């Protein structure tokens, strides 16, 4: 599974990691849905740290598309909220 952290790198992760990643992402979603801004930074960092520590960076000269694209590390709580309600980081 290839995961991109927007603004950083693409990482190759074992497919088994998908489940754990989903759980970590679920935690971020519930923090945002619950309006708990103070918990957001840690929750989102946990997702990114997991990808960085479990994945192998893909070389800049390799041309592969990602299975999953994560928003940038400096994503704000507000921006995360907009991600969920449809008005994403990248305008259509």
């Amino acid at each position, binding site marked *: 599974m290839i995961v991109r952290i927007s603004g950083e*790198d693409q990482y190759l992760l074992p497919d088994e990691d998908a489940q754990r990643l989903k759980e970590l992402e679920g935690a971020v979603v519930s923090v945002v849905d619950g309006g708990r801004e103070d918990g957001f930074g840690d929750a989102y960092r946990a997702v990114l740290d997991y990808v960085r520590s479990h994945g192998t960076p893909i070389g800049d000269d*390799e041309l592969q598309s990602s299975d999953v694209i994560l928003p940038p590390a400096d994503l704000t709580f507000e921006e995360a909220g907009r991600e969920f309600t449809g008005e994403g980081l990248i305008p259509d």
Partner: protein
Amino acid sequence: MAGLTGRMSTVVKAKVSKLLDRAEDPAETLDYSYQKQVEQLQNVKKGIADVVTAKKRLQMQESSLQQSVVKLDTQARQAVSAGQEDLARAALERKNVAQTELQGLDGQVTELEQQQQKLTDSEQKLRAKIEAFRTKKEVIKAQYSAAEAQVRISEAATGVGEQMADVGLAMQRAVDKTENMKARADAVSELEAAGTFDDITALGPGEDDIDRQLKQLSNQPQIDNELAKLKGEIGAGDAPAPSPQIPAQSQAPAPGAPAPDGAEAPGGDGQA
């Protein structure tokens, strides 16, 4: 995967497939993709240049404000020495406003530096991918039949396309940040143009108005403290020439009370 990653992935993929849909003929797709990639690289370079320009503007404002702070501080001291408390207060108010703006600018310059670094990294990554694509496209053209080439081209172009979309996002974020900062830089320019940080000895007819605004902008208790501190410093060190307006007793802290915040003479010469 819904939520956080779902939307982001969907939008990027939509963008990428839009890029790829243009041409039917594989060779044409290849050249078109490459041309698009090179254009995007130029855009990134321009984006970096814009960030650098914005940063330079803020840095110039910073250095001009720093000069104002030094100048106004000197003038406040001179005014205290001469016993002109009102003038000292006016200088300190201006200095206070200048310092506040300075802090704001400082944070923004740091922020822009980070943006610049990010964009530079993104540009290098994109350049590497484009270079890889250029090599690959010649190989594909030479070695594969039309049908097979189509598949391989899609793969390669999608990989680059995703990088392009990602750089596009980084640029958009940088531009948004720069826009916010422009507003602040403009506000500082307006203050400068209004003479807010001007030499207080050269106050023109507009001074009353500026001073009124400054009183609202500056933090009054802080000005009181700073003025008291200056008076303490100057009173304790070199005793100035006889000051006509400030009685000598207001210069040193009262012997009995420690008065750490130095609020010993709130009204200045009012009690003389």
